[in-house]
């Protein structure tokens, strides 16, 4: 049995801070959409992938029917008045055990992500964190678990810069996501401390983030 039952990718948001007029998962970086890069990253690990759509859903539905017919599209018809946590809850349909939840605007380094998933196999809740770098970071305070010696997340902070920021992906039971209008990290805060494993991640929220992500993808291409 796979340690993770499936993945839910939240792609319903407006992406208004980036202002490109299309869902962020549909932006091409390094010649491939972010969505295709995420699906390719997840494929060796999960058989079931749910993609939650809202803003300009027809673009993603058509794209998936041609390039990723095996994914399940979940519609968030209330994407304008709900947030990512609601999309992730809708996307959990048919899942009951351990699910990987991700934002659809992430470019993720494969090697460090594999380390994260291996770590997540043994934990109830595992949070993705990355070196702080994005324009509007949610910082995380970390510490070392006295029993296992592993890194753990102890708090989220908007205004207190730390080494790491919240990377907008995590592994958890669907039961953790309840209805409400909180941000995802706010939904997870009551369950801290939680296991973590730093991953190299670039989130695309603003034009500056996109430039950074493109530069990183180009540097990876040159390296390989």
């Amino acid at each position: 049995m796979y340690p993770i039952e499936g993945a839910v990718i939240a792609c319903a948001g407006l992406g208004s801070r980036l202002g490109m007029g299309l869902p962020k998962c549909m932006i091409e970086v390094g010649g491939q959409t972010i969505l295709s890069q995420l699906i390719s990253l997840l494929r060796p690990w999960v058989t079931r992938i749910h993609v939650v759509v809202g803003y300009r859903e027809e673009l993603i539905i058509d794209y998936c029917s041609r390039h990723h017919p095996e994914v399940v599209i979940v519609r968030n018809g209330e994407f304008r008045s709900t947030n990512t946590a609601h999309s992730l809850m809708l996307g959990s349909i048919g899942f009951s055990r351990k699910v990987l939840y991700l934002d659809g605007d992430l470019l993720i380094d494969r090697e460090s992500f594999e380390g994260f998933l291996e770590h997540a196999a043994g934990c109830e809740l595992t949070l993705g964190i990355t070196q702080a770098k994005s324009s509007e970071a949610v910082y995380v305070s970390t510490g070392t678990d006295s029993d296992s010696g592993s890194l753990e997340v102890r708090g989220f902070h908007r205004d207190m810069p730390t080494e790491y920021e919240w990377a907008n992906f995590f592994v958890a039971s669907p039961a953790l996501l309840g209805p409400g209008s909180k941000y995802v990290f706010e939904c997870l805060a009551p369950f801290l401390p939680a296991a973590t494993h730093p991953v190299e991640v670039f989130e695309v929220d603003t034009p500056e983030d996109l430039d950074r992500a493109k530069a990183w993808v180009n540097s990876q291409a040159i390296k390989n």
Partner: protein
Amino acid sequence: MSTAFCFDLDGTVTTLEILPCIAAELGIAEEIATLTRLTMDGHIPFPDSLRLRALILGQVPAERVHEIIDSIPLEPMLLSFIDAFNDASFIVTGNLDIWVEPLLSRLGCRWFSSKTKQDSGRLVVEHILDKGEAIRSLRREGKYERIVAVGDGANDISMLEEADIAIAYGGVHPPIPGTIIAADLVINHPSSLCTLLKAL
């Protein structure tokens, strides 16, 4: 939770639309396929289109229609699902009872279809199924706490709107935009569909 699974027949459980296959017998497969496509896309009201197609295709003897339908491949994964969840599965089809009854009997689950009668050797469409009404009648039975519906064409929209979980399915061809608007989920692969249905 007790769940009923309601499936469209043509292009969902069957891998081809049935009426164009029958029309091939009369050498008018292309014409009926065009009519079927226009109907599925919602450009022609389903009842008008079905009466017209029944009028034309009624020339083919029912026994021959059964042979033709018998030769249409069924989606194997959906077939296995219906077999495994026989008591909870339903075929909800606008197609005519006289044509699809042998196939539906073989599937072994319950079904709703349009109804016909013979009048002086002529095929007469007596009742055209409103798929939304089929779901409502199933709900009135009170046996199922949750109803899941799977469809792809314009006449599936009312069924999807009445269901608790509505799935626009594009296993054979893309679901029409109206079914997507009425749906909670869009699924294009039979394996993904059956995996999800089993997990619900």
